[in-house]
C-alpha cells in the first residue's frame, strides 16, 4: 500500500525531519481566545523554500494537537454556548470544499442532488459525518467551493466553519488556521502518460528523491500548495521546470494536451485524476509526507475555548475510524473494519484501481 510504504520510508528520515522542522517546533501554536488578538508572526516564511531536495520525512511536529472531545455530545444535542450550538442554531454547517478534485470534492453530477448533496467525495463524506454529529442530519451543510489558494483564506477570514479540501497540515499553515488531527496521510507523486517509460521518481539511499527522465521538461502543479515547495527544489536539481496552474483540472488539461510532461501533487488527488483519465499513471516512488486535516478558523467568538469545535471534530474523526457502529455516510460492508474504511473503499480504492491492495490503510491520528 502506497501510504504504508511512505510510513516505512525510514526512521532516519524522521530524525532529519525533526531537524528540518525545528523552526516550526519552537514556535508556539496559536491559542488566541478572541479574534481581535492578531496571530503571531510566522517563524518561517510562507514562500516556497529553495535549495537542495530534502530527504522524505514521515512525521510532522505540527499535526493538530487538540484532544478529541470525550464524551461526545449526542447528535443534535450540542452544549449550550458552544460553537457547535451556534452552528446548530444557524441551521447548517458552512463548509469550504474543493469542486475540482475527483473523488475528494467535486460537484454531484445528478440533475437534482437535493439539499446538502451538491458535492461528492471523501472529504465531503467527512463533512457529512460532522454535520450528522451536530444536527443529527448529515445533509444540513452549505458548501462553499473554494480554490486551492483560498482554502486557508476561507477559514482564516471566518467565511466558513470548516474547510475539507485535502489540506496538508504543516507548520506555516498553523499560523493561518487551526487543524484537526490528520484523517488521511498522502504523499506527493508524479503522474505521467501511461505509455511513458522514462519518467520516474526514485529515492536514493538517504531517501532523497530524484526525478529521472524529465530534464528539460515541464511539470504542472497548483500554486500555493505544498506540492510547489517540494517540486521547486527537485526542479533545480533535476533540470525541469515547474508550471503553475490555478487548479488540478487545468493541470490535467495541460498534461492531456502535451503542454507539460508530468503532473505532480498528493497521490490522493492524483488518484482522482487517474480515475478521470485512465491513460495516465503514477510514476515511481512517493516523495513527501502529506498528512491531511480539516482546517478551522483560528478563534471563534462563540466559544470560550477556541479549540472546542476542533476537539469535537476530532471526536467525529476518531468515531469514523473506530470499529463501533454508528452513522456512516457510505454503506458499510461486512469487510469494512470501520466507517473510515467504507469511505476509503468507496472513494479511494474505486478511484485508484488497479493500484490498490486488499489492505485498507490505517489513518495515523495524532493525539
Amino acid at each position, binding site marked *: 500500500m502506497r501510504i504504508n510504504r511512505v510510513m516505512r520510508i525510514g526512521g532516519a528520515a524522521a530524525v532529519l525531519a525533526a531537524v528540518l522542522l525545528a523552526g516550526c517546533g519552537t514556535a508556539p501554536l496559536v491559542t488566541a481566545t*478572541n*479574534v*481581535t488578538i*492578531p*496571530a*503571531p*508572526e*510566522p517563524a518561517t*516564511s*510562507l*514562500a516556497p523554500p529553495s535549495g537542495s531536495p530534502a530527504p522524505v520525512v514521515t512525521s510532522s511536529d505540527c499535526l493538530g494537537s487538540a484532544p478529541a472531545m470525550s464524551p461526545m455530545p449526542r447528535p443534535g444535542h450540542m452544549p449550550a454556548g458552544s460553537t457547535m450550538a*451556534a452552528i446548530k442554531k*444557524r441551521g447548517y454547517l*458552512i463548509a469550504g470544499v474543493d*469542486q*475540482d*478534485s*475527483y473523488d475528494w470534492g*467535486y*460537484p*454531484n*453530477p445528478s*440533475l437534482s442532488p437535493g439539499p446538502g448533496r*451538491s458535492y*461528492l467525495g471523501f472529504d465531503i463524506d467527512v463533512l457529512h459525518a460532522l454535520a450528522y454529529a451536530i444536527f443529527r442530519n448529515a445533509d444540513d451543510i*452549505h*458548501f*462553499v*467551493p*473554494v*480554490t486551492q*489558494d*483560498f482554502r*486557508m*483564506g476561507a477559514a*482564516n*477570514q*471566518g*467565511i*466558513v*466553519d470548516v474547510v475539507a479540501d485535502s489540506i496538508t497540515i504543516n507548520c506555516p499553515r498553523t*499560523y*493561518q488556521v487551526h487543524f484537526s488531527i490528520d484523517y488521511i496521510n498522502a504523499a506527493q507523486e508524479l503522474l505521467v502518460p501511461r505509455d511513458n517509460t522514462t519518467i520516474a521518481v526514485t529515492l536514493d539511499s538517504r531517501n532523497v528523491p530524484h526525478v529521472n527522465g524529465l530534464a528539460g521538461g515541464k511539470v504542472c502543479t497548483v*500554486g*500555493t500548495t505544498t506540492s510547489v515547495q517540494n517540486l521547486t527544489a527537485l526542479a533545480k536539481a533535476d533540470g525541469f521546470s515547474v508550471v503553475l496552474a*490555478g*487548479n*488540478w*483540472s*487545468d493541470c*490535467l*488539461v495541460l498534461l492531456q494536451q502535451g503542454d507539460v510532461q508530468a503532473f505532480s501533487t498528493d497521490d490522493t488527488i492524483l488518484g482522482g485524476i487517474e480515475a*478521470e*483519465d485512465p491513460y495516465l499513471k503514477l510514476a515511481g516512488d512517493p516523495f513527501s509526507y502529506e498528512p491531511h486535516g480539516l482546517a478551522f*478558523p483560528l478563534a*471563534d*467568538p*462563540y466559544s470560550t475555548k477556541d479549540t472546542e469545535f476542533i476537539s469535537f471534530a476530532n471526536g467525529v474523526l476518531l468515531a469514523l475510524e473506530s470499529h463501533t457502529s454508528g452513522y456512516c455516510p457510505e454503506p458499510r460492508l461486512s469487510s469494512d473494519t470501520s466507517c473510515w474504511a467504507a469511505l476509503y473503499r468507496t472513494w479511494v480504492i474505486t478511484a485508484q484501481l488497479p493500484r490498490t491492495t486488499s489492505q485498507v490503510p490505517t489513518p495515523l491520528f495524532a493525539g
Partner: protein
Amino acid sequence: MGLAVLAAWTVHQRDTALQNATAAGQRLDIGGLDDRLYQDLIAMQQAEVALFQGRVDAAAQGTRLTDPYADLGLVDSDLAALKAQFGTSVRVQRDISLISGEMTSYFSTEAIAQDDNRQGLPVGAAYLRDASRYLTDDTLQTADDIRKVDEDQVSADDSAAAAVPWPLLAVAAISLACLVGVQILTARYTRTQFDPWLLLGTAATVIVVVWSVIALSVSLHEVGSDTSPHAVAAHALAQALVADVQDHNDDLLTLADHGEDCYASTSRNAPYVYTVKCRFETQVVDSLTALKGQLRADLALASADALDRPVRAQIGIASAAATSWLAAEDALPTLQNLAVAAKAKQEPAGSYPRYDPPFEKVLAPYTGPDTDSGTEVTNFSGLFQRAVNTAIEHEWASYDRQAGSASGALTGAVTGAVLLGLLAAATGGLGIALRVAEYWSAGRRPV
C-alpha cells in the same frame, strides 16, 4: 469633350465609392453579415456555457436551451455568405478559412467539456474555460478582422469620395488655357476680335468646371461633415457592442465556473490579508469601469462622434445600463466578491462574518443552487445591447441617407457635366472652324 468625360468619370468614381461604402456599412449594421457572424459565434459560446450549467444534453432541455450545433450551422452559413461577397479579398478569404478551421478545434474542446461534465468529471470545467479562451483569443479576433476589413473599406471609400479632384482641376485649367489661347490666336490672325461660338464654348467649359467643382465640394462636405461621422460613431458603437457581448460571456463563465478561475494572494505575515481576483470577473469589472474600461472607452468615442440627438440619447441609456451593470457585479456569487464582503463584515466588529445574518444572505447564492444571481447582470447587459443596437441602426441609417444624398447630387452632376461638355465641344469646335475658314479665305489680317 475630354474634360467633360474626365469630369463625369471623376464624379462617377466618387459616386461608386459612396455606394461601396454604403454596401460595406450594411454588412456592418445590426443584422448585417459581419455583425451576424460575430453574434452567432457569441451565441454559440453562450449556448455551450448554458448547456454546461444545465449538465444535460441539448435535446433534453427542450426549448429552454439552444443547441450549440444549431449555432454552428448559422456560423457556417454566415461564412458562406461572406465568402461569396468577398471573393476577391485575400485577407477575408484567409479569415474565413481560419474560422472554419478553428470551429473544428473549438467544438472538439467543447465536446470534451460537455462529455466530462455529463459524467461529473471536474476536468470538464477546465475544458470549458479552454474553449472559451480559444474562441475569445482566436476566433472572435479573426471575426473582428473581417469587420475591420469592412470598416477600412468604409473609411477608404469615404476618403475617396471626399478627396480633392486634382486631375480634373489640372485638366480643366489646361482646357481653359487652350481655349483662351485659341481666342488670342484667332484675334491675331483673323479680323474677328471676339468669336461668339468660341466664347460660348469657353463659357460652357467654365460652367462644366464650376459645376463639377461645386458638386464635388458638396459631396466632399456631405461626406466629411455629415456622412463619415456616422460611420465613425457606428464603428465605436460596434466595438462597444463587442465589449458588451464579451463581458456578458465572461459573466456567464463566472457563474458556470463557480470561482475556479480565481486566484488568491496572501500577505506574508499575520494578520493575513487575502486578495482574491477572479479572471472573468476582473475582465468584466475592468471593462465596465469608467476611464480605463474598454466598453466605456468605446462608448465615450461613440458619444464624441454622435451627431444626432436620438443616438446620444441611446448612448446615455447604454451608459446608465453599464453603470448599473457594474454595480450588479458586486452581487455576483464569486470568490472575489465573497472575500471582499467577508472582510467588510469582519473589520468593524472583529468577529467572524459567518454568524451574521446579512452575510449569510451574501453567502446563500454561492452555496445553494443558484438560478437568479445572473439575472440582473443579464438584464443590464441586454439593456445595454438594445440601446447600442438602436444607436448603431440609427447611425447606419443616417449614413445611408447622407451618402444617398451625396450620391444623388453627384449623379445629377455627371449628367449636367456631360451635356455641358457636349455643348462646349460643339460651340468651341464651330467657333474654331469658322475662324480657320476665315483665315484660309484671305480675310487674313496682316501681322
